[in-house]
């Protein structure tokens, strides 16, 4: 399968959920997805289009658009196409369905996105902070308006 047929199949199956799709090259395709149906789209990608490898899942904060993007980068072992899929969430209450039932390795990605951006994942098996201590939960340090940085505290500058 090449990039055009994959994108045609995806938009044909989910005409309501997939929008702003773009074929950047023969190996990179980009699409945006409605956050309500992320799990169905991912299940279709894995079962029908042989996108078996979730390379990465992370967040990006856009305060001017008042949105937090959750970005899924999904690759395949059967064809060279890599899909970048973005789900746009409101910044006040970012809630999205977890894709752990489809891609099991999303577990730690989603825990990290949760502790750094505050994206709540529904039906996640173990949603707790991954790296940060428990008492830093709620600060969301990778959001653009985070102001908890220590300001000029280091005194032994060498």
């Amino acid at each position, binding site marked *: 399968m090449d990039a055009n047929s994959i994108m045609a199949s995806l938009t044909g199956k989910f005409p309501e959920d997939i929008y702003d799709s773009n074929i950047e090259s023969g190996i990179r395709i980009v699409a945006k997805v409605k956050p309500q149906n992320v799990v169905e789209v991912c299940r279709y990608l894995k079962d029908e289009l042989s996108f078996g490898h979730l390379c990465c899942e992370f967040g990006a904060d856009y305060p001017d658009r008042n949105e937090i993007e959750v970005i899924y980068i999904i690759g395949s072992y059967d064809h060279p196409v890599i899909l970048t899929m973005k789900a746009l969430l409101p910044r006040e209450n970012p809630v999205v369905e977890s894709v752990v039932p489809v891609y099991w390795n999303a577990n730690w990605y989603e825990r990290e996105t949760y502790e750094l951006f505050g994206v709540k994942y529904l039906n996640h098996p173990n949603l707790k902070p991954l*790296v*940060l201590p428990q008492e830093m939960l709620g600060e969301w340090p990778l959001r653009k308006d985070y102001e908890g940085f220590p*300001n000029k505290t*280091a005194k032994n500058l060498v």
Partner: protein
Amino acid sequence: MDEIEQKNVEHTELKDVGYDDVPGMVLTDTNFISDFIKKTKVQDVLNWGRKNSLWFMVNAMGCCGVELLSTGMAHYDTDRFGIIPRNSPRHADVMIVSGYVTKKYLPALKRIWDQMPAPKWVICFGDCAISGGPFYESYSTHQNIDEIFPVDVFVPGCPPRCEALIQGFVELQKKIDAKKDKGTDY
């Protein structure tokens, strides 16, 4: 729960027996003896022994930890100075803060420090441990480790070479010899 209660019972029995009856033995809960020894020449002998057996704990916390590990290996051969890497904090005299200290790791580091028997010393190894280094103004690291631990020697560098760490040990030996170190204030 039963094991804990049994241990407590044994402990109280031991306390009841006591060692006050042993002839020639004095029990004290003050540091009168050590304070007295510090005024005499015996302390010089003790410090000579301490400065020549600075066993450090292998606690590689960041990328400087690689230099820390290779310092203890055969090429630099710090055994000839009595500087021996130990794997347990209970065997060690020197704790080397060899990297950034994150907010999550600091409680564990304090616990390791409490497990080490006195006298004990701290060496800050690398820019991250001294001032934060590249993680200066980071949301998840602690700066100014010298406010938490009594640091005797700072070894700057990013990372410092193994020779720099050996020189740091030599400086620590000089401080112990001159009785100006912070580690023996126990």
